[in-house]
């Protein structure tokens, strides 16, 4: 099959098991983003796929060619893999065009030059061909790195936090451009990022890793965001409002209303509600709980509001509201939840996941 197929990868550093039977598959032309806590083995998996590290247990196949098993190790330059790691910088002593030509040693000279110029064109940097890397901005260097990775027509592109050195604006621009270039070239791409929003923006499929490369959930970005199957996955995308309760008649009660669940009656459960899942209404009606706003922070299009419920229990609430919602002009507010943004998990689930550190 075209693309990347990894299965049963386990990897140790000394006695430390970093990957435990990790598997994944990426068809050509698709982009899979891997999200997971620090130390969960994401970079290790990329290093194994690229051939920088030898397989101890498991199999790696790229475009139907087995490139790595414990008894077989194809060297990186024979794997048709392009890599773009955050710390994988351009050669400072070579011009931009020579940086790109470097990976094209297999091509006849005139064809190599053509290909290099074509890649520079794709990332909009032809006029920089004879410049040196240090004269380029971070975003421009990133574009060159992408051009260099794609120039040898790899079957697989591995990106390890490729945009983390860029500021917000540049980051957004470069990731959009990268996506265009990738789709145009039809390579299978595996990208690691610490930024869940970046993953949602770029990925055809997101894989959320827990400890030791264990896959907690895989699916379309929409699915990961709206149907998280683990507390950890739900919490990836920022702060959550948490309530606890006991399941009764297929529901859990919260101060903001009840939520349906298929967890068995009698089980202690927690309800996680995204800030956009709390609906604030004027003139407290019967369905909601009255609340008092304690602060408000403008995020651009939205506000994040902190509030206190007047239900005698206390506890702070985070609410995402439209920017036109001016706290100063409101009174008699009440809140209820939108079940679409509310997720129920048994409290026992915390046990095997509580050791996971939140990712930055």
């Amino acid at each position, binding site marked *: *099959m075209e693309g990347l*197929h990894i*299965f*049963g990868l386990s990897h140790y550093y000394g006695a430390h098991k970093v990957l435990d*039977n990790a*598997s*994944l*598959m990426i*068809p050509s032309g*698709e982009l899979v983003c891997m999200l997971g806590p620090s130390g969960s083995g994401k970079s290790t998996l990329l290093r194994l796929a690229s051939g920088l590290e030898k397989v101890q247990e498991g*199999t790696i*196949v790229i475009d*139907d060619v*087995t490139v790595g098993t414990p008894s077989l190790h194809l060297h990186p330059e024979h794997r048709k893999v392009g890599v773009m790691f955050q710390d994988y910088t351009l050669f400072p002593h070579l011009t931009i065009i020579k940086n790109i030509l470097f990976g094209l040693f297999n091509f006849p000279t005139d064809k190599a030059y053509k290909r290099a110029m074509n890649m520079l064109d794709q990332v909009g940097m032809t006029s920089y061909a004879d410049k040196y890397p240090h004269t380029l901005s971070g975003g421009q260097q990133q574009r060159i790195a992408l051009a260099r990775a794609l120039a040898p027509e790899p079957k697989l592109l591995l990106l390890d936090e490729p945009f983390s050195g860029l500021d917000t604006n540049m980051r957004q621009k470069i990731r959009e451009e990268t996506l265009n270039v990738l789709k145009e070239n039809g390579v299978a791409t595996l990208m690691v990022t610490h930024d869940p929003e970046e993953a949602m923006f770029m990925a*055809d*499929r997101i894989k959320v890793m827990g400890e030791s490369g264990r896959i907690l959930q*895989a*699916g*379309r970005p929409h*699915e990961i965001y709206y*149907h998280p*199957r683990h507390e950890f996955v739900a919490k990836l995308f920022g702060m959550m409002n948490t309530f606890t309760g006991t399941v009764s008649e297929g529901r859990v009660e919260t101060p903001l209303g009840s939520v349906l669940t298929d967890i068995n009656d009698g089980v202690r459960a927690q309800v996680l509600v995204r800030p956009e899942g709390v609906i604030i209404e004027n003139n407290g009606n019967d369905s909601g709980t009255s609340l008092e706003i304690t602060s408000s922070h403008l995020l651009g299009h939205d506000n994040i509001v902190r509030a206190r419920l007047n239900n005698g229990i206390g506890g702070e609430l985070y609410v995402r509201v439209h920017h036109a919602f001016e706290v100063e002009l409101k009174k008699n507010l009440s809140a209820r939840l939108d079940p679409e943004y509310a997720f129920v998990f048994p409290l026992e689930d915390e046990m095997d996941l509580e050791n996971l550190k939140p990712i930055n």
Partner: protein
Amino acid sequence: MVQLSETFLMESQALDKDHQRLVEMVNDITQMLDGGEIENCKTKVLNFVEFVKSHFAREEQLLNKVGYPNVDKHQKHHKELYPKMNHMLEFADMVAVNAQARESLKKELVFFVMDDVITTDLDFKKFISGSS
């Protein structure tokens, strides 16, 4: 076209036959959508979903029979894939009027069969090939 190369084989004839059939069904739906033939899409996706469910049942039975220790975990994994199948059916309802639904359905089918179903099964490949 998706193909089941050697690395995806389970070394269990029954399971490999099922997996092969799943791949064929996905290719068939994909080709149909690419050819602009959408009338039969819903039926084919329905058939696909039915076949997946019967495959899960067969596989779980086999795992029980050979005494695979993590049957429960794998069964749970199968269960977790049900919402994905419901979603595919929803997409299939939209393919006539929505190009995005066609693309998403194709993508979903391939990832589903190759990543969620078959690749995950490779977890017990060692066990069943050793036990047969």
